[in-house]
């Protein structure tokens, strides 16, 4: 068989913007400067990109590049210094009802005085969802993450991977349109991690969510995402925005052994190395 010319990688050195009808969430010229006693820290300089409906986008970047900061701005937990986040045409100023966050410190984000099922139920109870519907949603969410056998346990009685699944169950029971996940699998073992990755893809599909998934694991970003946004080192801008043209159905063994997977992974790896060495598209563009 002929070896044809390599398929070009679909990538641009800025964040993609989408037509309004495909867009669920827009980030526009987002900048965040922390004012501290030791002076100002510019965590995010200028970020612009859109997230499409029912899209799973991965966000990678070196440690300290402001990924968590960006996520908190999107979630309405932090006010941007300038720029804005728009969800469904409305500027985000407070945590929106349609959004759920899975925090990097998932262990601490579960309430230790509540049992697993009560943790998952709490946001629904607070939102005034009727009891019967709540029970249904909680059971469904726990079944979805494979934890329907431990509803009466306390979170601290569970392993790290299980706690993380509780946090995910709580997020999906809340029925968000957008799910933000901040390095959710950083602290779990490889096997659990693979299971959780497939879980995220599965619930994304069955529930029709849009997911923004922050990770510093390059393999994970290519395996999970339909798109990978790479951030530069701090002060942060978008380094590259890449479309992952792998088949829709992902499989831990098959997908990861595809030549295309290797190519994309290779590319992302190079970009991250560039970012770590301080290459910046904004500086390169002005030269």
């Amino acid at each position, binding site marked *: 068989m002929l070896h044809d010319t390599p398929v070009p990688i679909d990538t641009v050195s800025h964040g993609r913007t989408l037509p309004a009808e495909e867009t669920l969430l827009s980030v526009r010229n987002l900048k965040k400067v922390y004012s501290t006693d030791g002076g100002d820290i510019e965590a995010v300089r200028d970020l612009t990109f859109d997230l499409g409906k029912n899209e799973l986008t991965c966000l990678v970047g070196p440690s300290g590049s402001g990924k968590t900061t960006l996520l*908190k701005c999107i979630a309405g937990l932090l006010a941007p210094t300038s720029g804005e986040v728009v969800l469904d045409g409305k500027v985000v100023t407070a945590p929106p009802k349609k*959004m759920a966050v899975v*925090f990097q410190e998932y262990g601490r984000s579960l*309430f*230790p*005085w*509540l049992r697993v099922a009560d943790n998952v139920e709490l*946001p629904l109870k*607070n939102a005034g969802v009727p009891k019967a519907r709540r029970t249904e949603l909680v059971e469904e969410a726990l079944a979805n993450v494979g934890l329907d056998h431990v509803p009466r346990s306390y979170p601290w*009685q569970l392993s790290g991977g299980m706690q993380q699944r509780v946090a995910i169950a709580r997020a999906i029971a809340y029925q968000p349109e957008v799910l933000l996940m901040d390095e959710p699998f950083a602290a779990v073992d490889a096997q659990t991690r693979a299971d959780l990755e497939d879980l995220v893809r599965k619930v994304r599909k069955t529930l029709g969510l849009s997911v923004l998934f922050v990770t510093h694991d390059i393999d994970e970003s290519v395996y999970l995402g339909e798109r990978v946004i790479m951030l530069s080192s701090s002060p942060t801008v978008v380094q590259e925005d890449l479309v992952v043209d792998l088949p829709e159905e992902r499989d831990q063994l098959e997908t990861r052994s595809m030549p295309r997977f290797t190519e994309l992974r290779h590319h992302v790896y190079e970009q991250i190395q560039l970012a770590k060495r301080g290459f910046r598209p904004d500086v390169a563009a002005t030269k």
Partner: protein
Amino acid sequence: MKKAFVTLGFALGLPAILVVLWWIATTVSPSFFVPTPGELIVTFVETWFGPRLWVDILPSIARFGIGVVIAIVAGILLGMLVGLNRDLRAFTEPVFEFFRALPPPVLIPVLLLLFGPTDWMKVFIIVLAAIWPVLLNTIEGVRAADPVQTETSRSYGISGLNRVRYQVLPSAAPQILAGVRQSLPIGLILMVISEMFSSSSGLGFSIIQFQRRFAIPEMWSGILVLGLIGFAVAAVFRYVERRILRWYHGLKELENAA
């Protein structure tokens, strides 16, 4: 079964030894000022299982109970308010520290002049003394709320009173209850002292009366009643605390095992 006996033996061992020593000492060299264990028991039953139960013990317990409950509720409410508001905290902290440093019994003469020797004055003095540990611990507990938990609440739209109820109060509960534990004996002490100062009934009043009339065994039996009340209060507290903080003790046990 055997293990239970051993545990019981350990728990009762020291009290038994002390009683025996006391019995030997008072039998070998009888003293007018110290009754034998047998005398004390007889006097105890004769003195307190009669009208005095209604006239002295129950009113004392009622004053203590009402005062302590008001102190706990007010301490928690005020502590929540102050703990959740940084400005209010900075504004009130020095004053709180001052009042806490004041030995509460010195307020009794002042309050006596202001309110007279009424029951409410005694309740009030118990509240004034017992509120500080609860108040300051609540402020501290609320202030120390885990920022990740707080962000979780915010991101799920849990705010205002719901946040207090679902997050702030339970997360501060261990610290609040540590404050309550300190405030209970303080309440008991102030109950006795306020009754010694001014009263026509109550345990503190009776003990002083007995002492003045040289009714020594009766005086000792009053002390025994106080000790038993203190013991019962501590036991009830331990039971309630175990129930409310089951999660906390489980968590700590796990952390210590690791």
